[in-house]
């Protein structure tokens, strides 16, 4: 499928370059309207992300993992799939969540430290955030099996990072996916680092994409800052999956422009020049250039859109801050369908203690 872009030959799929010039290859691409939508999605993700970081700086938000620089991967991936297709995220995919339609309120609520935030994804077919690296990729394969078994017309996109490819679970997921020939797309956002660990120390292989061939299916490396490349790769992989062609691995070659999380200080492990060079390849910038060239947007418009999102974010976050914290009952209530007597006992005993304390 990606014959012209065999990663083992050092080739990478790229369509929209850093100067905003599109070089089509005959494969599926987003229309100009699609690109406009993509731009708004990416902008929205960028603003939400920036604001989350700034809330954290203000002491209003807990640890948060910014996605800055990776927007094209996330918006493109969702635009290339259907509403009833699945997304199995790691933790850095807020852009994908937003693009799939999940209300920002819930996304923030989870990062704010409230489990209720994780309750929102179900109707959008998004699994909750997964922190244990790469463990979620196996869930995606299981969902893929279910879709195949139930003959549902749905594919699954599983996300992990460059670091995630080192976990045994990721290899097991690829292997199961290959044998079961399930409709799963493994999307690796290779942002060059796993916290401080550079890709070169993560694995000796040249591209993460070629890992797939060892499990009997195709892998492709794409310019992950190029919305068209992302769209095309995911679209082709999804079509193949829908037609019973099984899994595909996509490596989005990208960069995390911000810190690993708000607790991280990236200057300890990477050079400013490196960051500056990648800032030139900013996915938003290049799409903006394209759209400006095509006169599809103006600088003022993008400014306005940003403002609209800012308001949305501000509102959502205020709502988050105004939300009640989990109660004592909440932390007990959801471990099992029915609370076991042993847990009820612990709850009652603690409540009795709290009451006595309150009476003092």
């Amino acid at each position, binding site marked *: 499928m990606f014959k012209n872009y065999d990663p083992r030959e050092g080739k990478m799929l790229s369509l929209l370059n850093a100067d905003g010039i599109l070089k089509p290859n005959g494969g599926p691409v987003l229309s100009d309207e699609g690109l406009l939508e993509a731009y708004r999605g990416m902008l929205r993700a960028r603003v939400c992300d920036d604001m989350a970081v700034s809330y954290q700086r203000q002491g209003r938000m807990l640890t948060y993992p910014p996605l800055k620089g990776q927007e094209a991967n996330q918006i493109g991936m969702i635009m290339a799939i259907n509403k009833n297709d699945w997304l199995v995220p790691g933790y850095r995919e807020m852009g994908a969540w937003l693009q799939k339609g999940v209300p920002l309120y819930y996304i923030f609520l989870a990062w704010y430290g409230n489990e209720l935030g994780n309750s929102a994804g179900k109707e959008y077919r998004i699994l909750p955030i997964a922190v244990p690296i790469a463990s979620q990729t*196996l869930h995606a394969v299981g969902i893929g099996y279910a879709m195949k078994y139930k003959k549902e017309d749905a594919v699954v996109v599983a996300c992990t990072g460059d670091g995630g490819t080192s976990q045994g679970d990721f290899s097991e997921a690829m292997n199961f996916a290959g044998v079961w020939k399930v409709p799963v797309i493994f999307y690796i956002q290779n942002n060059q680092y796993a916290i401080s660990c550079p890709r070169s120390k993560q694995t000796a292989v040249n591209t993460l994409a070629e890992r797939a061939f060892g499990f009997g299916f195709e892998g492709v490396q794409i310019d992950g800052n190029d919305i068209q490349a992302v769209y095309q790769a995911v679209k082709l992989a999804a079509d193949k999956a829908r037609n019973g062609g099984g899994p595909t691995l996509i490596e989005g070659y990208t960069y995390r422009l911000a810190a690993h999380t708000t607790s991280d200080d990236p200057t300890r492990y990477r050079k400013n020049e490196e960051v500056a060079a990648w800032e030139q390849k900013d996915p938003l910038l290049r799409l903006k250039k394209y759209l400006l060239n095509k006169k599809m947007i103006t600088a003022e418009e993008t400014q306005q859109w940003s403002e609209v999102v800012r308001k949305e974010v501000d509102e959502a976050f205020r709502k988050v801050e105004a939300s009640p914290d989990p109660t004592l009952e909440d932390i007990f209530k959801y471990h099992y369908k029915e609370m076991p007597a042993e847990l009820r006992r612990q709850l009652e005993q603690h409540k009795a203690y709290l009451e006595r304390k309150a009476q003092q």
Partner: protein
Amino acid sequence: MKALTLLQAVNDALRLEMARDKNIIVYGEDVGVEGGVFRATENLQKLYGEDRCFDSPLAESGIVGTAIGMALAGLKPVVEIQFDGFVYPGFNQIVSHVARIRNRSRGAWTLPMVIRFPYGGGIRALEHHSESMEAYYAHTPGLKVVIPSSPYDAKGLLISAIRDSDPVIFCEPKRMYRSVKQEIPEDAYTIPIGKASVVRQGDAITVVSYGAQLKEVMEAAAQLAQDGINIEVIDLRTIYPFDRHTIIESVKKTCRFLVVHEGPLNFGVGAEMMAVVTEDAFLSLEAPPTRLGGFNLTIPLARGEHHYMISTDKIIVTIKELLSF
């Protein structure tokens, strides 16, 4: 009624439930054509097809992890791990996901699934094939841990586990797989998870046990009865959530307590049972609540295994000591 071994009872439960619900998917290493190394899944592939009963690649994290995905997408996976000692590659999936998804999504996502495996020693098996580490799972919030001790219970408890809305770790006492036959109903029936069973009434002492170890306890009970000592025996059946009520009621009556289990003693199930009794029946106790467990050793290979297993005689001696405390 038909006379079945515990292994056949497991197979029977799987067969009946798969007939009832086509969302049930059974897989694991060698469970397809082979029917499992013990034959617990015998014939299921023939009956229900390769997409409902099949061999997975050799990877326990993969087995548990994909089962999670299936369950989240509406299927009901009932997976087999080949032996107790091989659950650990899947431990991360169990602890970090299986046990948590309901709570961490505040009930939005649930994980009705069963992880079955043969457990315990006494069959002169190879290394890593004789473990009894149910305390790991019982200590993990969010799991249910069930261990049957008879063909009747195995069938009823497994059917309950399959129908449960929450994930169940189902440990099958492999030492008993083929050692006894019992007449059990042909149709499906359930036994409630979370309820212990008073398998023998008595007044001298309360003895809690479960799984394969129950055999020696019952033998001890029978021998003691000949001396006029009637012990009350409780089969815990569910290790978590365990049935505190039944245990405490019994101890209040007998005023003495012993727990017997095969797994390592320290930080084991026995410690929890002693804590439970101490918490709720301290003033009734006429002797210290006591535990007999495996030594805190890796269970020895075949030639040394007999040193490790808890004999009927040792149970009797311990009980007699407690009675004369």
